[in-house]
């Protein structure tokens, strides 16, 4: 282990980690918005839109992010849509994540039983109050673990961005291996960087799951 090498190139990893996080956060936030919209469309079974949403969900869940990115980055310019690598990263992550988030929200909404609606209504709540005070708190409690798991999954998926020439963590590691042949050191730093990013989130996931396990009614 060459510690000098490691300390010399730490700033490069920090820069790369910032880029990974930046694109990851933008992509994940867009994914949450898309997922929320999709799950609402499907929950209320809005005609036509809900069919489009289910096609989108199937397409995005059954193809790998790498292939989606190649299509966006190399294929789209041929029909005149030129996107920078950063934009491709965010769009790709949002496209992939949207469907996973939608499934997460949907399972939460579906887990709320009809008796909850009926009881709320019989207490004289209006539609909005039923949603605000009865359905959404319970649905969220059920879907939060899935959502956090999706965040981790999407952050991990950002590692393929190096394939479309985004200077993320993977890219820096590959670069350093190619330039200096310091394989062990470069990979060690890579693993460390991902641990620093992902370990806190996965600990949070464990904590949330424990907290929320008893949040639903009647279990």
């Amino acid at each position, binding site marked *: 282990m060459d510690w000098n090498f490691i300390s010399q190139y730490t700033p490069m990893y920090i820069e790369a980690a910032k880029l990974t996080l930046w694109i990851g956060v933008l992509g994940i936030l867009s994914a949450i918005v898309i997922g929320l919209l999709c799950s609402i469309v499907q929950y209320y079974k809005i005609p036509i839109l809900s069919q489009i949403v289910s096609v989108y969900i*199937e*397409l995005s*869940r*059954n*193809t*790998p992010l*790498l*292939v*989606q990115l*190649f*299509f966006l980055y*190399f*294929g*789209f*310019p*041929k*029909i005149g849509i030129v996107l920078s690598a950063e934009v491709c990263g965010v769009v790709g992550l949002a496209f992939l994540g949207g469907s996973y988030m939608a499934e997460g929200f949907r399972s939460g909404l579906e887990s709320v039983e009809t008796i909850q609606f009926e009881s709320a209504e019989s207490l004289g709540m209006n539609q909005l109050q039923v949603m605000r005070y009865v359905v959404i708190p319970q649905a969220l409690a059920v879907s939060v673990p899935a959502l956090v798991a999706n965040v*981790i999954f999407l952050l*991990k*998926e*950002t*590692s*393929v961005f*190096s*394939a479309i020439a985004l200077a993320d963590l*993977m890219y820096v*590691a*590959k670069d350093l*291996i190619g330039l200096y042949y310091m*394989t*062990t050191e470069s*990979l060690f730093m*890579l*693993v460390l960087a*991902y*641990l620093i990013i*992902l*370990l806190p989130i*996965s600990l949070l996931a464990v904590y949330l799951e424990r907290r929320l396990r008893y949040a639903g009614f009647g279990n």
Partner: protein
Amino acid sequence: MQDLAISIIFKGNNLLRLLDGLWITLRISLLSAALSIPLGILFGMFLTLKNPISKFIGRLYLDFIRIMPQLVLLFIVFFGITRATGLDLSAELSAIIVFVLWGTSEMGDLVRGALISIPKHQYESSEALALTKLQTYWYIIIPQTLRRLIPLTINLVTRMIKTTSLVVLIGIVEMLKVGQQIIDANRFDYPSGALWIYGVVFFMYFFSCWPISCFAKWLEKRWSDK
């Protein structure tokens, strides 16, 4: 004269070459799945042991593998292990090693989840009905575990197929790489080839995974209310 751009797919044996590439992807993922399912079942049973040491080892392995992006694991095995030990692993072998390691941990967690999800009263009720230990497992526990496990396992297989797309980045010539070669070879005849080729690759992945996930969903629905 410029041909229609879509005909790049049918030019020469391009489509066959792409299908060959798909087969390489599927071969790696199915082989890894076939190895990691039995290993994962064993690992899942290992995870339910009450022994604190085995628990710690299991969690450590599970969490490390699951927290690292699969691409990082591929790099560690393909570049790191080979450099550190001097072993000459082929890219395909490294890919299979990584996917088996990863699949075992994922499968193990699914098995653990299915095993601990069987409520204690199931054991107690069958004892009250005077079933023997063997009968309890055979008629009560295993059917319920399998019912939960099989759809999830099938989903894991589709995830493996999707993740196998990463192997192009450690230099395996699979569908994406073949697509790139076709695009480069026809750069002047078909300037917009990339759109069609990557479109075909996209849908080939889709049609490999979609029927499998539909099947999983169907099983889940069919078994859920029993």
